[in-house]
């Protein structure tokens, strides 16, 4: 295929034309005739009993149409919002799930939890009416702090403790023995700060109900509309799937936060039938802060054993993970299967044991956010490795190299349930050291010192497991469903190609990348390939976009579908050329037999209007495929950060950041670089700026952009990014996924640089100027 548009080409994105001209269509841009507006009633308390809700006055407001409460949704038989991943405690018992009704019925458990929906003719009327709903609460003592939650009195009635599970992985006895025998043990206490994802488009929903057909249509800000439909049909039971269409139009960023099925779109859809009118709800940013799923929030103690030569002998990790007030859709899996399994990192540590206590608190539910468990694992491994290098007087890069799994070791089975298929960690480290001019660091440090700034350098050699499925492994690990992805390729009669994918784009550029893949594979012009996604009415099934899975799983499904197109096209072409199918070859978009040649377009047209097909040859040229990988993919890389800490102000400036990543084969390098840049800024945000803070009463004190510090353009430097390539061994494209790497590797690298600059391991994320200023003064 053309070098300008095929695999490996930096094709400019076709979706950009609508976005740069203001012609994108995001959920809140949509309006339908007869539309009403919804405003949610939200708990002002972290924990309280709901004694009574009086909506009489609210309903007097001109234009007010209805007020629904948890009693109404419960009476209507609406099911709970489910958690899709069953984690078992180490004693074999199932995790303890607190019931999660879409609207709180008798008790609210976090500030911002929805307990009612007001519907009115206008947004202004809905807001006014919401103000007039009188809710009588009886405050209860909240449990807020992660570390103390397990011992505190239970927040949910009927639960014995605030402990959802006590999970473990690895061999504890062997790990303890190896630690006891180690020449040196490095111990570290770490906090992984709570983050709030903050896609710039707030969540929104526009639900309609057609009483004539009984069909619901929900247009919403979702990363996986098919899963949304599945949950709303099978679990919440709003309507069967053939009566519920879910469309995710243009979606303004997600980073995980728009995977989950939330209360708001659930209740709005249900209520649209009750009111008999379309209902639109769009979150204000303050609602996003309160009620989008939050992220991270771990408290961890880790111990790393080393032998005399510096080889890692054991890693023991004890983590308490804050799950929030309820188990969100994937919340249980993040601090367990997506975390504990990654604690081997890039190293041959022979003994690893991890224990995770998942705890309930009166805070917003915590779930997957860019990296989901893997940034937390990388933070533990790469912080303690750096600390061990310092404690034992070794160069941090060389200590890593000494312990790395080597290219000849693959496939490599870790002590924590994964088999890495391929990699070359030394290559990415070497390249990163070169790009970072590691040799020149001492000089740069001296130059900074002359300006009153302490300079530090920090490393992070991360690994991630991406491309969810593999379904069998995922189900063994507790997933509620297999995680195949689907794809369909339809060669239209005139030869243009429509590609349907169950994957979803909300910034990743699928409409371009997937078209590159199909155009390359089928030898058709890039401009003739259209990619359709995000609509359950047009795409049969899908599991959406998360865990850097789109290309590795969704793209592979398209390759399988394309193979079927070629196989069927071969039979049709053979019939047309009166040749044996075995004698027909497919090359560069054409079927060739001897000196006969038919283009895919010619075969497609003929396939739809045949007159003489034998009974076993079906007309048409459209094929579907489901793809399930046999293993995760394992992107990995080396990140090196350099910071300057201003002695006078405590401000940390990230002055240099090098990321060398191995994503396997790359389809569009321009898009890949962009994904890395974005992840790095989010990681820098976690390390230096962002912190979701609840006070002791459970009030969110960082509930706006005035208080929650988002990375701005002047907080980050230009990034130096490069890639090394070891193709994934088990998918047809050789791809591994690139969406999360930046956010996974960077926090550890940056904090390692800050601790290097300060000469202490005791630095908490985010490394704010106040914290630095105090540390510089020994306060």
């Amino acid at each position, binding site marked *: 295929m053309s070098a300008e548009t095929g695999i490996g080409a930096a094709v400019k994105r076709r979706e950009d034309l609508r976005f*740069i001209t*203001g*012609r*994108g269509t995001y959920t809140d841009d949509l309006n339908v005739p007869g539309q009403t507006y919804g405003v949610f009633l939200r708990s002002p308390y972290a924990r309280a009993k709901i004694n009574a809700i009086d909506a009489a006055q609210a309903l007097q407001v001109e234009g007010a149409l209805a007020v629904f409460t948890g009693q109404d949704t419960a009476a209507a038989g609406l099911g709970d919002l489910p958690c899709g991943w069953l984690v078992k405690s180490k004693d074999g018992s199932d995790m303890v799930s607190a019931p999660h009704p879409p609207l709180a019925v008798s008790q609210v458990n976090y500030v911002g939890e929805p307990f009612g929906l007001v519907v009115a003719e206008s947004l202004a009327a809905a807001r006014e009416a919401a103000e007039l709903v009188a809710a009588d609460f009886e405050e209860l003592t909240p449990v807020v702090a992660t570390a103390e939650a397990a011992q505190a009195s239970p927040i949910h009635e009927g639960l014995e403790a605030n402990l959802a599970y006590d999970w473990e992985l690895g061999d504890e006895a062997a790990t303890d023995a190896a630690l006891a025998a180690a020449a040196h043990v490095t111990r570290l206490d770490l906090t992984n700060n709570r983050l709030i994802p*903050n896609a710039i*488009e707030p969540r929104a929903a526009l639900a309609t109900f057609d009483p004539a057909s009984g069909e619901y249509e929900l247009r919403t800000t979702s990363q996986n509309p098919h899963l949304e439909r599945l949950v709303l049909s099978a679990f919440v039971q709003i309507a069967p799937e053939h009566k519920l269409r879910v469309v995710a139009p243009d979606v*303004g960023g997600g980073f995980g936060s728009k995977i989950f099925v939330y209360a708001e779109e659930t209740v709005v859809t249900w209520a649209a039938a009750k009111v008999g009118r379309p209902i639109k709800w769009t979150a204000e940013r303050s609602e996003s802060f309160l009620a989008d799923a939050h992220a991270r929030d771990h408290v961890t103690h880790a111990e790393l054993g080393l032998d005399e030569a510096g080889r890692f002998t054991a890693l023991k990790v004890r983590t308490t993970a804050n799950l929030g007030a309820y188990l969100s859709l994937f919340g249980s899996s993040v601090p367990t299967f997506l975390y504990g399994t990654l604690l081997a990192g890039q190293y041959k540590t022979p003994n690893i044991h991890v224990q995770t206590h998942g705890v309930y608190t009166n805070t917003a539910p915590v779930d997957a956010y860019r990296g989901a468990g893997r940034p937390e694992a990388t933070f533990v491994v790469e912080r303690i490795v750096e600390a061990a290098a310092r404690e034992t007087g070794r160069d941090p890069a060389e200590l890593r190299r000494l312990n790395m799994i080597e290219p000849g070791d693959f496939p490599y089975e870790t002590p924590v349930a994964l088999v890495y298929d391929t990699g070359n960690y030394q290559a990415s480290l070497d390249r990163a050291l070169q790009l970072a001019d590691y040799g020149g660091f001492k000089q740069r440090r001296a130059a900074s010192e002359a300006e009153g700034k302490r300079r530090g350098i920090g490393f992070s050699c991360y690994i991630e497991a991406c491309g969810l499925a593999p379904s069998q492994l995922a189900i063994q690990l507790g997933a509620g469903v297999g995680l195949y992805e689907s794809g369909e390729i339809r060669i239209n009669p005139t030869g243009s190609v429509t590609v349907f994918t169950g994957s979803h784009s909300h910034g990743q550029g699928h409409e371009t990348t997937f078209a590159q893949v199909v155009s390359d594979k089928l030898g058709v012009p890039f401009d003739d390939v259209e990619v359709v996604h995000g609509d359950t009415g047009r795409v049969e099934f899908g599991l959406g976009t998360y865990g850097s899975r789109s290309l590795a799983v969704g793209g592979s499904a398209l390759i399988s579908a394309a193979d079927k197109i070629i196989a069927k096209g071969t039979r049709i072409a053979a019939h047309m050329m009166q040749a044996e199918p075995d004698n027909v070859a497919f090359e560069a978009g054409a079927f060739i037999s001897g000196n006969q040649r038919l283009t895919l377009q010619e075969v497609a047209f003929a396939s739809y209007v045949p007159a003489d097909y034998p009974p076993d040859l079906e007309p048409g040229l459209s094929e579907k495929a489901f793809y399930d990988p046999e293993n995760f993919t394992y992107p990995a890389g080396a990140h090196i950060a350099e910071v300057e800490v201003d002695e006078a102000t405590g401000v940390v400036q990230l002055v240099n950041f090098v990321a060398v990543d191995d994503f396997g084969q790359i389809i569009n390098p321009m898009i890949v670089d*962009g994904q890395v840049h974005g992840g790095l800024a989010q990681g820098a945000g976690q390390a230096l700026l962002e912190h979701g803070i609840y006070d002791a009463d459970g009030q969110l004190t960082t509930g706006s952009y005035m208080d929650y510090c*988002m990375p701005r353009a002047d907080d980050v430097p230009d*990034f130096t990014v490069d890639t090394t390539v070891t193709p994934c061994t088990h998918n047809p494209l050789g791809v591994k996924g690139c969406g999360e790497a930046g956010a996974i590797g960077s926090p550890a690298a940056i904090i390692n640089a800050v601790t290097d600059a300060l000469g202490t391991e005791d630095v908490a994320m985010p490394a704010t100027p106040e914290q630095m200023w105090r540390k510089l003064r020994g306060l």
Partner: protein
Amino acid sequence: MNLTLTVNGVEHSLDVPANTLLADLLRTQLRLTGTHVGCDTSQCGACTVHLDGRSVKACTVLAAQADGRAVTTIEGIGSPDDLHPMQAAFRDCHALQCGFCTPGMIMRAIELVESGAALDNRTVREALEGNICRCTGYHNIVKAVLTASDTMQEQAQ
């Protein structure tokens, strides 16, 4: 209240509640949905438009304040067939991903270049402080603004 304003070169006379924000007037009354609303504290900059050539956050301007004045939105600066140099540079440099912050970012960047200030990486980053992007890490946005700055200056000569 009645007000008359010019939006993207077209004059509109409208009757709106006095507390209507310019962002809502553009999005709801005029259906110019390219101007986005991403926060409620005038921090994110997704709603940035030009009011008499100056960039303003339309969520912080009352519609009444635009009475008798000229508003330019993302829809008014170029089309897919005839892109403004800043729009073209954003695409060429991959300066957008989800596209939600992009209209505001482009409107702010155009004003920055048109102000005639001497621009380099640092000054562009500082000038974009009022516009938040969660996708790109800003790297390619800065590149796009500097690229468009060159093109716009060449065109002006």
